[in-house]
């Protein structure tokens, strides 16, 4: 995989690849800036992203040991307050276990480096490893949509690989891993996916094939998607001559926010230079 030197894969990058090979190439390999709008209405989307970002910070604060009363004082938005009130009954019991907010993970599949950032990793007394992901979008994805997401396959896989470094005495095994999506707007409907040895084998093969496929694209070329609807929500629309106006999005794309988190965490070095 010589092409991927200096390049770490993440769920976001692979999700982009699956949606459109060309987008993956433009965005991550060529790193081509193209500042057109992705979707409208911008201000509303921005506001929701801002709220999502704030919510993630509040959750991180809670799991970093800051008293909930101190955290709650900062909330000055009614939606955020509602999310927070929904969250506490779910979150507080989790603090009784070993917990690691914003947990960063690296691993290798088929000799290519991968990274992931979990919103929360919990290790129970029974040695269950549970990955939590907070979803703040208005619309809840269906269980089958969630199951198909790259995130649902990649996160448990990387945890299974890296498990021995987290608990040397009792490393994470695929059967002891769970992935839980919790929704701020649907607090009583979390979606849980139990991982397994069998699924681990399937996923390893799946990602290996995907990586091989990507590797070949360097020779055969990265194709534009055939699904033109995707171009409506892609900033490279004009670059690819796939239209001019951005699509109207009914729900804020959760991926935008995920992308921001990944960029923030993976860029690593402090932003402001004096």
């Amino acid at each position: 995989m010589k092409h991927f030197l200096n390049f770490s894969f993440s769920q976001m990058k692979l999700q982009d690849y699956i949606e459109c090979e060309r987008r993956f190439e433009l965005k991550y390999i060529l790193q081509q800036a193209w500042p057109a709008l992705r979707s409208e209405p911008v201000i509303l989307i921005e506001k929701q992203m801002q709220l999502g970002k704030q919510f993630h910070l509040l959750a991180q604060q809670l799991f970093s040991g800051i008293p909930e009363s101190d955290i709650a004082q900062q909330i000055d938005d009614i939606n955020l307050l509602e999310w927070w009130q929904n969250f506490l009954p779910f979150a507080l019991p989790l603090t009784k276990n070993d917990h690691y907010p914003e947990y960063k993970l690296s691993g290798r599949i088929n000799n290519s480096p991968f990274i992931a950032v979990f919103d929360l990793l919990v290790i129970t007394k029974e040695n269950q490893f549970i990955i939590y992901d907070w979803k703040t979008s208005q619309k809840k994805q269906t269980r089958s949509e969630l199951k198909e997401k790259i995130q649902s396959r990649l996160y448990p896989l990387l945890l299974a690989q890296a498990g021995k470094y987290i608990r040397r005495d009792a490393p994470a095994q695929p059967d002891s891993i769970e992935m839980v999506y919790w929704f701020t707007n649907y607090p009583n409907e979390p979606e849980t996916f139990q991982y397994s040895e069998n699924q681990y084998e399937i996923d390893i093969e799946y990602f290996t094939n995907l990586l091989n496929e990507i590797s070949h694209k360097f020779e055969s070329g990265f194709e534009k998607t055939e699904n033109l609807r995707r171009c409506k929500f892609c900033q490279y629309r004009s670059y690819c001559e796939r239209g001019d106006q951005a699509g109207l999005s009914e729900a804020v794309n959760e991926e935008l926010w995920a992308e921001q988190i990944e960029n923030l965490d993976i860029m690593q070095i402090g932003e402001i230079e004096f």
Partner: protein
Amino acid sequence: MKQFSEMQENIAEHAIAETIFLSGNAATGKTTAALAYLKTLRATGVSGNSIMILVPQRSLGIVYQDFLAKLGDFNGGIVQINTQSGLAQRMIRLFWPIIAYQTPFANPRLSPLFLNLETSQYYLDKICQPFFEKGYFESVHLEPPRILTQILDNLNKSALVGFPYQEISERLKSAWNLAPGHMHAYDEAQEVADEFRHFCYQHNLLDFSLQIEILQKYLWPSLLCKQHLQNQFRYIIYDNCEEDTASIHDIMLEWLPKTSGGLVIFDEDAGFRTFLGADPISAQRLKSVCNFVHTLSEPFLPRENMETVSNVLNAALSGERINHISGTFKHSFSHQYDDFYPKMIESVAEKVNELVSNGIKPAEIAILAPYVSDALRFQIQQQLSKHGIELAFHRPSRSLREEPVTHVLLTWAKIAHPEWGLIPTHFDLRQALTYTLQGLDPIRADLLTRVVFQSKKEFWLNKIFSVRMEVQERISHYISEKYQELLEWLITYRENPVDLDIFLARFFGEILTQPGFAFKDNFHAAEVTSKLIDSIQNFRQGWLQRNPLQIINISQEYITTLEAGVIAALYLQSWDKPPENAVYLSPAYTFLMQNRTVQYQFWIDIGSLGWWQRLLQPLTQPYVLSRNWLPGQKWTDFNEYETNQANLRRLCAGLIKRCESGLFLHYSGYNESGGEDRGPLLKAVQKILRFTFTDQEIKDV
């Protein structure tokens, strides 16, 4: 994978369970020892999540970033590379709820708003306006933006050095040794700094100085925060600690003894960032908390000739006698005089070409000057391109204001928003049309401007179809149609105007990059547009959260402030490694901060005083606002002279240590602006030449 020496491997082994203070000159293999340490930690099974690499500035982290990328995964974790300010921001964001109530902020319940250099300057400018009107700072004869940066600089120094910001003027005044009339300028700067700080407290705004102060005063002393950091990072690599500030050294003094292992790297004869608060004397304190002190003295790669060059130049700069110089000296030290500046650039390019023709990789050549202006860059680029050689260059930051693309975008924004009353000029529109309509040359753009620009009307552009057919033909039908398309887009947009950054993003995607328009496939334009949109968005989002000045139209405010030069829309250029196939041009100090070595260096314009003299800063003083300055002591001409001399010696030594094979010195009778310069570097070189070269070889010098 990199090869390490036995010594480096040994250091790495030791640092698994001990803390080591590793000092030595540049190019003795200290950073490579740190890479060996990372490799050893990885082999030992330590997770990347428990390792922090601390560097004084982003560029110094690149070598680690590259190495880590090559390693791929790090035992399931990710190694974090931090700077002091990065650390401060992360910690403030996370722990704000527990420290906010101890701080002097008026509304601790509200989350803080981080200011960057741009937004800090923007607010400070607003604070300054009434003071400017009262005649403040008239005596210093500086442009307002430079006044603003020096006031911010003072606040930053107070935080980085660790003294109360209220004492800035007292400290500066107590060291002032010239005409007493200047002292009131320090008081004026203090008054404005006080007012600005008060304003930040009132509105929860965190400029750089406050971020550092909060880290020092509230976060690090908090047990929760301290434990968070100490539990997470069990291993630390702290590279180039001599380029960092006393305040972060204070933190590391406490932190290092709590780690499982670590490596603190100290570059002797460095401390180049003094003007940014670097304190090598303070960094030496870290020795006392490390388990071992180790010094590397042998150059990692043999470079005997360059050692001689360094010693001879140092002797010449120090006014010492030059004794024997070995016969091979001339192989590594050459000089060239030209009467005129452009000729000097030509000579540089010819020499570079000679090296490249002899098989030297372009990336192994650096051209260094005290400052790199656009004109200099352009001339070097031109000359090198004649030989088919590419040039990569770096300036730490670049202003979007200087980009023609920015000018074009803002012209269209003004036309789309006539209610702002910012009428573009004929020239603005002509330039915008030339840059926007593909295939339109400036002559036809001028014609088009004359027929469609109607600055007296409510909307400033007219339809092309109302223009005579022969004029349309001269412009070309295709371009006329494209113009009309653009106009109609603007008219439709007018029905529902949006904020400036959103306007630009839409305009970029829906018009500028569509077929027939000139941003299509123009990657540079895309890059600049992207940076400009980011800058505006940052402004707008801050304004949405907090609007202390009650600004009604942030878009208009952004444009007027940018055009007034108050904010420079500076963007940090990426600190990636320069491309392998290009010669590298950079200011000398910037090159030092990249921690890289090249085979050949060209120092140009060595007669310039810029090699020796520090920037004139009448409202601040980096040596006085430092922990190493005794309050009450006077800063004399002698101090100034000695400091400049010491800095020049250090700069030359630092550069030569980063040069493996040869140094080329170039100078001209007349400088870039036609003046004659005979700075101390040139004088020292002349001294060497008189000793080493024949009269024939040094003619004209």
